[in-house]
């Protein structure tokens, strides 16, 4: 189904199931510890062995030799796969750092061996007996030291290294009120509750991996590429994921080494990253050093705005796109955004929870507060004054809908912003200094195609199959709600099956693209199924209603179970998008209000109250999940 014109009223808008405060349909499994996570799939294949990854003890250099003898002789050891057994493995399309193979060490805790043993403890104990010789090379780890010499580099999502509108320098020079400040943010690691984990089993040339991955199709493609296998020989299964935060968007060493270990051991092998390995063996959010300059007229209108960001990564990596929101959030005729990338020998920098905006918006919003103070303006008023209803870089391209001002105004009213004392250090509660703050929230709508298969069984049960994942965000429930709404059945007549690469390819979970695209794909498949049922029954598709487990047209009514027939019905479709994004900038907005306290002696900071007023979602799929 192609979605290229604004939607009109459709069956979703009945809102009989969608939009309700629905309990999570997988909640009981999770709260009773019975949701099957990758490392606990004891049931799926017999004779599983345990793999333990040894990480490099140096941050840069080469392995000069590895002595595996003691480890191989240790109790319970089945086999050891060493990085010296093979050349550097091909990189997956989404990988920057080498996951395994070869003698070169590019970052600390790069995987260099997998010990496979009968028990986890035996594998871990044997790994400590591997003796590794290293030829160390002095690496670069300090962003501040490398920042000045860092060259420009383009980022993710099409942001150029340098984007200009008008003449920033001249306008900034001429501005009556100016701000020129630097902000820095540290490296940050994903530490989701479930570590990266995989169980791999070979059946001849066919490989099945039970894993924990946000993007099944990417994972399948990249695992096949890394292991030089035909894609059709690889199956990924990831129905439950204990948190991802972007750290499980990509193929990682656990899946690659479980597969290599299983091949070497001749039996299924499972591998989980230990907690200490998670920081340096995987991806992380890189540190940034940002410079923001804002020039304004005395009445507070921004005339010039510039945001520069420097971050580090391995060669061929991308910068943290910390300037992205500054291209769109506030008005100003003269603009400059600029990203630089320093080559550092740290683990791969990549997406982590709101990549770009998390560090970038923080800096921009601090700068906006500081500028408001210089102008003697209320920070809410300063933001409202510089609202824009069009893309400031392309003024003939409006926002599809932009309610930032409404978010700020409503938030201010509900929060009691008018009680704020703008002079710092005036409000006390015992030994705590209390203040209020505001910030805008911003993230772009991200559209990507997404498919699903919907089956109607002779028992009247609707089964949805898609390789979409649930990373704890409630995907099972919103997909079930979508199918129930579309097919006119209660939630308990819907079965949702997710996270299997044998299912149609979905949007996957990440970057704020999961819920909107995956439910739209299920919608498309349900439309196809509805049409097929109408045709089969000879109903007029224009006059048809699906409700209470029945399909009705005029005075005719047939149970869905009957309509399914003995063989049932199964249809697949997906959502695809036209070029609306060229005509409209589609973004989501929020006004955040916080009451914070700072201890007058120790400087400890505590958030006492917070309100977020959000706008952007045209439809709340589950009131409960939204709250």
């Amino acid at each position, binding site marked *: 189904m192609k979605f290229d014109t604004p939607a009109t009223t459709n069956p979703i808008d009945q809102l009989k199931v969608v939009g309700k405060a629905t309990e999570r349909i997988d909640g009981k499994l999770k709260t009773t510890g019975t949701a099957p996570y990758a490392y606990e799939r004891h049931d799926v294949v017999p004779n599983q062995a345990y793999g333990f990854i040894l990480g490099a003890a140096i941050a840069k250099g080469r392995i000069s030799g590895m002595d595996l003898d003691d480890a191989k002789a240790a109790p319970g050891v089945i086999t050891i796969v060493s990085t010296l057994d093979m050349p550097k493995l091909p990189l997956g399309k989404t990988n920057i750092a080498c996951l395994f193979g070869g003698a070169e060490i590019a970052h600390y805790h790069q995987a260099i061996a997998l010990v496979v043993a009968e028990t986890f403890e035996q594998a871990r104990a044997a790994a400590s007996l591997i003796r590794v010789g290293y030829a160390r090379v002095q690496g670069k780890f300090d962003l501040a030291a490398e920042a000045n010499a860092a060259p420009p580099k383009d980022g993710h999502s099409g942001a150029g290294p340098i984007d200009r509108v008008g003449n920033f320098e001249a306008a900034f020079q001429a501005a009556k009120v100016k701000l020129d400040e630097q902000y820095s943010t540290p490296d940050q690691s994903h530490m989701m509750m479930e570590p990266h984990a995989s169980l791999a089993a070979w059946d001849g040339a066919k490989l099945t991996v039970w894993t924990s991955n946000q993007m099944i199709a990417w994972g399948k493609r990249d695992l096949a590429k890394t292991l030089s296998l035909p894609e059709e020989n690889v199956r990924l299964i990831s129905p439950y994921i204990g948190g991802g935060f972007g750290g499980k968007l990509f193929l990682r060493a656990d899946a690659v080494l479980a597969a290599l270990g299983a091949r070497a051991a001749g039996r299924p092998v499972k591998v989980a990253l230990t907690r200490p390995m998670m920081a340096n063996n995987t991806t992380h959010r890189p540190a940034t050093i940002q410079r923001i300059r804002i020039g304004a007229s005395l009445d507070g209108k921004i005339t010039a705005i510039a945001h520069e960001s420097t971050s580090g990564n391995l060669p061929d990596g991308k910068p943290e796109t910390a300037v992205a929101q500054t291209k769109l959030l506030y008005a100003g005729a003269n603009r400059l955004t600029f990203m630089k990338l320093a080559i550092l020998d740290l683990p791969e920098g990549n997406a982590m929870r709101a990549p770009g905006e998390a560090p970038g918006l923080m800096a921009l919003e601090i700068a906006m507060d500081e500028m408001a103070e210089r102008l003697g303006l209320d920070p809410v008023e300063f933001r409202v004054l510089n609202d824009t209803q069009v893309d400031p870089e392309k003024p003939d391209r409006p926002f599809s809908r932009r309610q930032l001002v409404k978010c700020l105004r409503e938030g201010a009213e509900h929060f009691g912003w008018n009680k704020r004392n703008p002079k710092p250090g005036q409000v006390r509660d015992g*030994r705590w200094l209390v203040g209020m703050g505001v910030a805008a929230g911003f993230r772009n709508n991200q559209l990507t195609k997404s498919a699903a298969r919907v089956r109607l069984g002779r028992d009247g049960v609707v089964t949805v199959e898609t390789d979409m994942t649930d990373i704890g965000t409630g995907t099972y429930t919103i997909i079930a709600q979508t199918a129930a709404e579309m097919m006119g059945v209660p939630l308990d007549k819907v079965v949702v099956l997710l996270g299997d690469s044998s299912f149609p390819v979905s949007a996957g979970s990440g970057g704020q693209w999961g819920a909107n695209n995956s439910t739209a794909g299920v919608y498309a498949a349900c439309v196809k199924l509805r049409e097929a049922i109408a045709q089969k029954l000879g109903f007029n598709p224009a006059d048809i209603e699906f409700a209470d487990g029945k399909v009705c047209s005029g005075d005719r009514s047939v149970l869905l179970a009957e309509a399914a027939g003995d063989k049932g019905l199964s249809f697949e479709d997906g959502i695809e998008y036209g070029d609306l994004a060229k005509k409209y900038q589609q973004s989501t907005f929020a006004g955040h209000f916080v009451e914070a306290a700072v201890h007058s002696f120790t400087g400890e900071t505590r958030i006492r109250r917070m309100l977020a007023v959000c706008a952007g979602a045209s439809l709340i799929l589950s009131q409960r999940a939204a709250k």
Partner: protein
Amino acid sequence: MKPFTYERAKSPAEAAAAAARNPDAKFIAGGTNLLDLMKLEIETPKHLIDVNGLGFDKIEPTPDGGLRIGALVRNTDLAADERIRRDYGVLSRAIVAGASGQLRNKATTAGNLLQRTRCPYFYDTNQPCNKRKPGSGCAALGGYSRQMAVIGVSDACIATYPGDMAVAMRVLGASVETVNAHGTRRTIPLGDFHKLPGTTPHVENALAPGELITAVTLPRPVGGTQIYYKVRDRASYAFALVSVAAVIQPDDTGQVAVGGIAPRPWRVEAAEGELPHGAKAVVGLLLTGAKPTNDNKFKIKLVERTLGAVLAEAKEAKAQNS
């Protein structure tokens, strides 16, 4: 983890004898620290002597009006004990400021005293660490040292003693009671129990090989306003950047010990004479000879400010009580 043997001791004499037979043995009680360290092969005992069956799980009055806390009294039970809450409030507050409910249910009084540093370079076996591997060097010097000690350190080690409970016990003037394989008992003042690193940072306390802690004794209650203030990077489940345990009397005299800044709970009795003159005066003497790194020099000011907060709170309590 290295393979090890295991036995359950039924009496203190049996535990001590087992320790004498096995030079590479360790006692295990709650295991909340030891087991983690064994998994990482930082601790590699060949034999574990489980002392959980030895009794030592009572809190009893002493003849001089204090309390004897059995070595195996769990942290949760100690913090919740009515006498501790009433007469030694700083100790109860310090215990609940540490770890998590689950860990405190398991952790014991003696084990808490013996917990090892949380220096990240001690934990990462790829890094040099004189405490873990004597003579290998110290990666924390010149590394990330925000959490590290600022006083009592040496060129060999800048790790902290990480706990909370012992800081409160130190301010209360507690002592450690032990027994050895020959049945000889001795009492070690807590101030002499934890050793400064010097050139031997792997020697962390005054216990001889095989010597077993049986109890911690507290002297008779001293009253006053008892405060434990812990400042940390997270509001919960984090080790102290700086913690202050204090007993402040109505005449502004009192005792102070500081956690998170030294290889042992840091108390300088001479500095306590300055308490009536305020935090700055106390800290001037308390931290004489401090050797902070660039990363942790903020702790010097933070000690003064945290003590300032404690003294302000004590003053308020005094005003309310008068």
